[in-house]
């Protein structure tokens, strides 16, 4: 992996400049909105990018993993009897951390199961097969949730007080939004640390570069891929928790659009690149908010997908290029 230092600094610098200019244009509140929406996309995009980096599969079902994660959260909170804001801070902390852990572990497991039964048998099949299977899995997940929870949107308890605001440089900002952004950053940093510092992370990186060579060096491919799916799906599960805490609602069709936009984020940042996925997620958040501010709200989806097409056509390696592996 060769990185030219000058090149590496240019893009972040440009982005920082653009971000500052944009902040002047849309204002602090919308800036925070963009970061919040972007944080959700980033969390989901990470899963896409890791899976693609390691087995070159666009996991269509990943957006629905996010959606199932939000339903797991909803089910957990309503089964435990929470109906609204929790004002007792220690209890709130326990509930929030517990929910994150539960959702992440459950969705991580779901991801591993899907990989084991739907994707692993097709690892050596022509490209088309696992892609079509992934679409099939996506519909299966949606319909299972529809069977259990019904087709209408559900209203969930937003345990963090959504009306709490904090003063940020003269502007009132919602506490929940800051929490979401903070959680996303923490998880992203944790993931990056895991991938770059641990043994399993090294195994993941080497599998992404050259699967056969990694196998020859003693890496257990199946376990490595399973761990990749676990981590990616866990992050999508975390995004599901965020969806409930922040927006307080979910429905079985949430995954499709969110998944597409998250995939756009991953591609925009550079598929296979963890930092890229995070960056891409925030960028897409900004694009959406800017569309709304500019009065193009109805077109925001078309704009996002238009960007997807442009990036794939003109710069398929994305803004930050490759990191997990080398791809022509």
């Amino acid at each position, binding site marked *: 992996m060769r990185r030219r230092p000058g090149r590496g600094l240019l893009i972040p610098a440009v982005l920082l400049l653009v971000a500052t200019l944009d902040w002047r244009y849309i*204002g602090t*509140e*919308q800036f925070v*909105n*963009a970061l*919040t*929406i972007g944080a959700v996309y980033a969390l989901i995009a990470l899963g896409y990018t890791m899976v693609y980096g390691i087995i070159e599969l666009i996991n269509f079902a990943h957006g629905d993993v996010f959606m199932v994660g939000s339903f797991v959260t909803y089910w957990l909170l309503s089964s435990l009897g929470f109906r*609204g804001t929790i004002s007792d801070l220690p209890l709130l902390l326990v509930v929030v951390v517990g929910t994150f852990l539960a959702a992440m572990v459950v969705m991580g497991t779901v991801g591993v199961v899907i990989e084991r039964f739907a994707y692993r048998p097709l690892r050596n099949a022509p490209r088309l097969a696992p892609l079509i299977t992934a679409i099939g899995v996506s519909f299966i997940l949606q319909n299972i949730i*529809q069977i259990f929870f*019904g*087709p*209408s*949107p*559900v*209203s969930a308890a*937003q345990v963090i007080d*959504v*009306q709490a*605001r904090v003063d940020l440089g003269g502007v*009132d900002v*919602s506490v*929940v939004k800051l929490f979401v952004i903070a959680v996303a950053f923490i998880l992203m940093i944790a993931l990056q640390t895991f991938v770059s510092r641990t043994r399993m992370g090294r195994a993941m990186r080497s599998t992404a570069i050259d699967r056969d060579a990694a196998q020859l060096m003693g890496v257990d491919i199946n376990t490595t891929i399973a761990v990749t799916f676990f981590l990616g799906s866990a992050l999508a599960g975390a995004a599901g928790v965020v969806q409930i805490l*922040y*927006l*307080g*609602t979910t429905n079985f069709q*949430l995954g499709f*659009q*969110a998944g597409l936009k998250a995939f756009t984020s991953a591609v925009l940042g550079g598929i296979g690149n963890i930092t890229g996925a995070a960056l891409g997620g925030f960028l897409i958040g900004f694009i*959406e*908010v800017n569309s*709304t*501010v500019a*009065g193009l*709200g*109805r*077109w*925001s*989806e078309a704009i996002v997908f238009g960007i997807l097409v442009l990036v794939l056509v003109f710069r398929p390696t994305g803004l930050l290029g490759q990191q997990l592996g080398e791809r022509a």
Partner: protein
Amino acid sequence: MKLARMGAALAIAAIVVGACSSSATTAPSAAAPASAAAPANIAVKIGIELPLSGGEKPNGEPTLNGVKLALSQIQVPGFTVTLNVQDDAVNGVHDPQQGAKNIQTLVNDATVMGVVGPFNSSVAKAEIPIGNAAGLVQCSPANTNISLTKPEFGALDLRKTKPDELAYVRVATTDDIQGAAGADIAYTIAKARKAFVIDDTETYGKALSDQFVATFVKLGGTVIDGASHGVPKSGQGDFTSLLSLAKAQNPDFIFFGGVTATGGGLLRKQMVTAGMAAIPMGGGDGLSDGAASVSGSFLNLAGDQGDPNTYMTVAATHDIPNPEKLKADYKAMFGVDPGAYSASGYACAQVILEAIKNVGGDRAKVRAYVTDPSHSYDTVLGKFSFDKNGDTTQRIISDYTFDPGTKDWKFVSQKDFGAA
């Protein structure tokens, strides 16, 4: 050879399914009381074309039940009336193409005298031409789009096969009135002068919002940015950036043209997150889907934030002549409270039954009777007749607001917009 085996298996399966279901095909049609039919009774049917599955069930099912209640209470001498039920929801969403197919099926069933339905205006656009060509009358309990009946808005294109033989009537009044009523509420009751308007980029929602904008401006108010703001059609109901945009301009009213399924309840919820709980929010009958205890309804999704600042209009009269009796009868038969359009469904059934009573089991005569402006009907909704375009003469809009005590919609007032 594998193919032959598969083919044989398929054939056997089809025969088995067919043998068992030919006795069951009557299952969806049977709904009327099993009256001991005198041998002279002619069997006729009322067709039902409503969205009955998935996310649309809370809309279609109470309406269907209203029709069933009507059939159980009204006898037409000499006839046994049953139902032919068709569902136009595909994957949980109303589908115009499915609606067209369903109408065709009902047309092909010679015993169907008239149809109650459809529920959604976009479906009606696909169905009216077919009903018109076939001479099968439809009575919609809930369509509100103006282009379905009014010639100046393109309705003649829908009935061009037989422009002189109207085959579509409706008991709900139209969106030009409903949107205007919404603006009226905002201006006079909520005393708003600066409105921020949002729509869901759907036929119903956008038309409603556009009418709101036009009337609100005419009354003297200002609409921020001059027009309605749209959210992407298949959006996830994330209104945060739109609300932040609104907040910066200090509106004193937010109007939402759309239904709960496209984000109504979430909008209200997010208004609270955005710190706009004190600003009133208004909408049309797309938000009229039950109390907060009904899962998936607007009030349910709006959470505890459906405070007295929420308004809603329904394109039908609230002051129906005997609401308590209807509610009691409905509850006795179905175990739950009637839905927003149960009475409308009941009324449509009454119209068709009245026609059968007067002209017999002849589809063409029923159509002619129903669409004759000189006939009037005394129904659960009150007395009304249909004008020459098929619109009801009962141009009443009822206003509701949220009642935090019962956590349900509370009737405020109704306004009669007079004869057309």
